[in-house]
């Protein structure tokens, strides 16, 4: 039941928000709803640990003739991802309070709608439900980017839309195709879909459809070109949702759907498909080094980091997959932190160009410290959130094929190069005309960043709970694969 409430509450709030005229009310209501949602998430977590390791399953036969049911539940994987979503959405909403937002009720309504969609994606145990919610998230994402975005927003958002939508259509075809190959009576239930009976050629097609849909969403090289532009154009809240949460849908989809259903393809191709994200790690890192725009910079670092996660997810062993789950959570937290900081910098200096900024640390020591901590999390320093996941992924990849681990390991050095160089140019040295009147963060601005920093250290120092959740979920997937 909790699962259903988690989906329905934001859905209803989102609809309600559309009709609220008072913008102040709207944004406060949105925040309140997001916080309540977080509370319910924690209650679900509590139930999960203390009463049953069952999956908090909700099931309603909706279109029984077609084997479509409203089946939602939470295993370890869903739990991790809903916790991430319900942690980040309030942070995103709160951090936008310092900005001026036009048509606030629609804006916050869309964010909350997005939350509903995300929770649906992460908790769906029915293929059709997964697809519906997958598409549902695209709507708010599209409108947020298209209406509140910056320069060239229509063209860029359309590109984003065309990319992801074509990916999802392929996925829909794949799901329906699978449906017809499930044991009788056909069903979209995930157990049925896992059990579908495909010949090797069919498996390849289904795999490709899934892979493309997810590769676009994550994004994986070479399907990433929509992403930097979109991150730059979208408003900050939008970029945070896209980078922090939507990209995780692709990775989550890989682990929940693609791998258990089409793992024989991964086995037969001898890890060929891992090469794409691996190329992405090196490729995007190299590009990130040269970027001047901070948002574009973050976009490319994200391709590199998520490349590592995707490689881990496809290495088909428990460590790498567990690491991938942890790293998804960490990356979501860190990228939102980075975007919040860039948002603060832009709102003060009216620029996101690295070349124009300099010496901010002198004027804003609080910002400098918080930025540094988030940066250390991004470069996977031990005792921050990036470390455990990255190590597990490398360990798993090493088991899979040592050369992959060696290439993926380059991220250890690349991330330091681009991150520190960026930090050096933006934050250190003496101030210039752009930054000399930079003011330090107010407490109100610091709250979301402090929440993020707490998570960075929590996952870094005591990852036990997160590891447990990831392990629990991954064990089932690996069980299917074996």
């Amino acid at each position: 039941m909790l699962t259903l409430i988690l989906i329905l509450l934001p859905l209803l709030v989102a609809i309600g928000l559309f009709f609220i005229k008072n913008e102040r009310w709207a944004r406060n209501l949105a925040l309140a709803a997001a916080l309540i949602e977080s509370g319910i998430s924690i209650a679900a977590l509590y139930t999960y640990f203390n009463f049953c390791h069952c999956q908090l399953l909700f099931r309603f036969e909706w279109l029984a003739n077609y084997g479509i049911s409203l089946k939602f539940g939470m295993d370890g994987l869903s739990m991790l991802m809903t916790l991430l979503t319900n942690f980040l959405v309030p942070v995103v909403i709160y951090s936008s309070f310092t900005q001026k937002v036009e048509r606030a009720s629609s804006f916050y309504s869309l964010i909350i709608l997005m939350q509903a969609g995300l929770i649906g994606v992460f908790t769906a145990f029915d293929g059709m439900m997964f697809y519906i919610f997958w598409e549902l998230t695209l709507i708010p994402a599209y409108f947020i980017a298209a209406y509140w975005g910056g320069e060239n927003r229509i063209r860029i958002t359309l590109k984003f839309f065309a990319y992801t939508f074509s990916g999802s259509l392929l996925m829909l075809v794949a799901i329906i195709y699978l449906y017809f190959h499930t044991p009788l009576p056909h069903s979209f239930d995930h157990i049925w879909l896992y059990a579908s009976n495909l010949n090797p050629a069919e498996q390849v097609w289904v795999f490709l459809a899934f892979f493309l849909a997810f590769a676009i969403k994550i994004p994986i090289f070479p399907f990433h070109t929509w992403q930097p532009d979109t991150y730059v154009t979208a408003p900050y809240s939008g970029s945070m949702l896209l980078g922090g949460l939507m990209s995780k849908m692709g990775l989550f989809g890989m682990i929940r759907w693609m791998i258990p259903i089409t793992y024989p393809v991964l086995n037969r191709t001898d890890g060929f498909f891992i090469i794409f994200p691996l190329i992405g790690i090196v490729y995007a890192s190299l590009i990130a080094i040269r970027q001047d725009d901070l948002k574009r910079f973050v976009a490319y670092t994200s391709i590199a980091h998520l490349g590592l996660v995707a490689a881990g997810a496809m290495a088909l062993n428990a460590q790498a997959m567990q690491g991938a789950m942890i790293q998804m959570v960490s990356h979501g937290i860190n990228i939102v932190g980075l975007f919040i900081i860039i948002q603060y910098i832009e709102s003060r200096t009216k620029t996101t160009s690295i070349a124009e900024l300099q010496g901010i640390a002198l004027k804003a020591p609080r910002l400098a410290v918080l930025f540094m901590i988030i940066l250390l999390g991004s470069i996977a320093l031990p005792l921050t959130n990036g470390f455990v996941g990255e190590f597990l992924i490398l360990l798993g990849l090493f088991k899979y094929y040592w050369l992959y681990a060696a290439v993926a390991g380059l991220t250890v050095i690349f991330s330091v190069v681009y991150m520190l160089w960026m930090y050096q140019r933006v934050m250190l040295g003496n101030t210039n005309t752009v930054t000399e009147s930079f003011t330090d963060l107010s407490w109100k601005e610091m709250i979301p960043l402090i929440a993020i920093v707490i998570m960075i250290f929590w996952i870094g120092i005591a990852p036990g709970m997160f590891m447990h959740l990831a392990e629990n979920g991954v064990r089932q997937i690996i069980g299917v694969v074996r």
Partner: protein
Amino acid sequence: MIDFSYTIWILLIPLIVFVVTGLTGNRFKPIVTGIIGTAGLGIVFLLSVITAYKFFFVLDKVDGAFQRLLAFNYTWLNLTDKLHINIGVLLDPISVMMLIVISTVSFMVHIYSLGYMKGEKGFARFFSILSLFSFSMLGLVIATNIFQMYIFWELVGVSSFLLIGFYYEKDSAVAASKKAFIVTRFADLGFLIGILVLSYTTGTFDFITLTGPNSPAFTSGQGIMFLGMSTMTWSMLFIFMGGAGKSAMFPLHIWLPDAMEGPTPVSALIHAATMVVAGVYLVARMFPIFHHEQSALEIVAWVGGFTSLFAAVIACTQYDIKRVLAYSTMSQIGLMMLALGVSGYGGEDGLGYMASMFHLFTHAFFKALLFLGAGAIIHAVHSNYMHEMGGLRKHLPITHATFLIACLAISGIPPFAGFFSKDEILVAAFHHNKALFAMEYLVAGMTAFYMFRLYFNVFWGKEQHYHHTPHEAPLTMTLPLIILAIGSTFAGFIPFTKLVTSDSLPFENNTEWGIAIPSILIALVGIGIATMLYMKKSDTSKKVSIALGGFYTAAFNKFYIDQVYLFITKKILFNYVSRPVAWFDRHIVDGTMNQIAFVTNVASDKIKGFQSGQLQQYALAFVSGVIGLALLFTYLWTN
């Protein structure tokens, strides 16, 4: 059985101090932070001394050997059913010795910094990070497993990074801190791969298992060969790469001289006495496996030997006193690596191992002393360059006396500490490899030369025109100098052969005068040449450098290694790789995708017409559209 579980507080106290001072920040007067930090380290120092006393003199030995104790153990993560990551405290002779080294030097540096950093804007920040460093370094040496060591290894790197870049408004300091972090991180990538290989082949991270008599490392990972070396050899080489990065071994040394941009107490603590010897400690920690993989150990020996010579040559040409000391540090650490590389295992065969640890111990005292002395000098004359100094012995009597002791100690003049430890290294090298042995005689001479070149240039010669009359540093600064000078004088008499040996069993060893006397003579020759050239300011040294011609210029420019790195990173990586890749991404990858999605463009024109409508309507239409589409599909396909 003695309870050692309190030793976890050695780790926790600096951590608590860091967290408290870091969070309260500028809430208090800066000096309060300084005193809290210093007091915390004082307690750590006392605990370390107590632990050392109990460990070496009270605790029962097993079959005559010192025990290895897990004083504290906590399972941090379960990776697989067999593979765990623990955080704990391992006590054995080398870790206890390192506790003494770190807590002593760190405590001295804390006291010294109270005076040296007085009035600095970031005073509180400085002490806060100093505590973080102490925590990380202590955690590194008491690590029970290689994974814990790696965790703290990285934390040490970050604290070093933060302290080198302490003056973050200064571009050179920022560049130096970044360079240090990136170069050591590059080396750590090797370390990480080494750990992966090691844990994969042996199934454990645990030091006690890995370096015990029945180590799985001796049996597994032997069969598979790659480029003529076994998996285990490769693993050791990768791990050594990490050690070489931290310990500034050639060719990963380039960060250390630049790291001198940090405040001088930091150079003394991190870049002379403690962090930079972490690599040596790592090899010592893994020594049984290195010893089993002789080809890896051979490489350790040669890298160490070459670095010691290479750095000594450069040290002879530098003018910045901190850089001279930095190259000297590299050279001495090279000696320690070499000693490990030529060591055997067990009893007197393990002389090199003992000598390495012994030298690490004595070096920590006299090198910290040299740096702190240099700090006092810089404090007095506001310059780093020795040609802007001279005749300071009258103005800085305490600094002068203690500095002289340190110079004698590092030059290997008896009875100062360096003599004993360096002598053991020479003996060990002599029995193993005559070429390296000859090289080290040369290094010994050069060490004496460049140290006394520095000494005479600073304290003797003609007095320069200073901004104000140089005066002796306050007591907070001179007291640590005096204490460290006492250490540098007497540390050599500690019977290391009875305490810290490769197999924890004591053995008998006497000074081999046949090797020691020539080494003293060589050192005296080095000092003699320095006296001739530099005691009175004269042109002779200039003439010598001109006579050496190209070789001198090359050494003065540090053999252009920095330029090579710059060329590779800035020119090749940034300009010839990164930029074209960015172009490629924009024009080729994106361009291709755009062509494929040509339809997009057509569609975009149509959608542009819609944008002014009511958002709600479109959203609603969109949702129903998607759901409708999905239902339509299902309907069509099922019937």
